[in-house]
């Protein structure tokens, strides 16, 4: 006999498929934009801004080599001095959601905290994508 110690929470948080009445419900992992640009701590802001602009984004997620989310650059941070390093201006430890969370719950959170976007990560903190307000209906 085997015991899956992480349980259903670990499975859902990894964005893996399930069966059941909730299986077709829209979740964060379904709407997260996986093409969000990323950057590293040591890069200059200019490089992150150029990458984001070229991709049509106003945000850039700061990750390490394992794509673990370390911070977030939103519009205000991307406007900072060209040669400033990302780690000095990023928003460290942004609020993140797991892929199994319903978009209704994220909608409420984004409205309450007036967030324009929100990273979606796996249970071990790796970037899945970014959700924008319009993706979950938050206005």
């Amino acid at each position, binding site marked *: 006999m*085997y*015991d*899956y*110690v992480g*349980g259903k929470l670990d499975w859902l948080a990894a964005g893996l498929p399930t*069966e059941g009445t909730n299986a077709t419900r829209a979740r964060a992992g379904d709407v997260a934009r996986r093409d969000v640009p990323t950057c590293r701590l040591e890069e200059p802001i200019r490089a992150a801004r150029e990458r984001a602009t070229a991709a049509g984004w106003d945000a850039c997620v700061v990750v390490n080599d394992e794509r673990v989310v370390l911070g977030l650059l939103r519009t205000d941070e991307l406007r900072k001095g060209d040669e400033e390093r990302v780690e000095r201006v990023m928003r460290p430890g942004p609020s993140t959601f797991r892929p199994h969370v319903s978009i209704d719950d994220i909608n409420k959170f984004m409205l309450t905290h007036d967030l324009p976007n929100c990273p979606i990560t796996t249970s071990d903190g790796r970037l899945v994508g970014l959700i924008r307000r319009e993706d979950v209906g938050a206005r």
Partner: protein
Amino acid sequence: MPKEIDRTDVRRLMREGVRVVEVLPRDEFEADHLPGAISLPLRNLETEAKEKLDPLRPVLVYCWDTA
């Protein structure tokens, strides 16, 4: 004693045909469960295990998390 495994092991064992069993209450199973899992709530374990489980087939159990 059951052998403790992680997600990678679970996916491998599923491919190998393990019987996956959720021991949470039935309504939680009906909302979401791992692909191919059957429901065997803890409170019914003694009465339903013999009926639902093949003694020759490996079994993998899970609940909500590590608690």
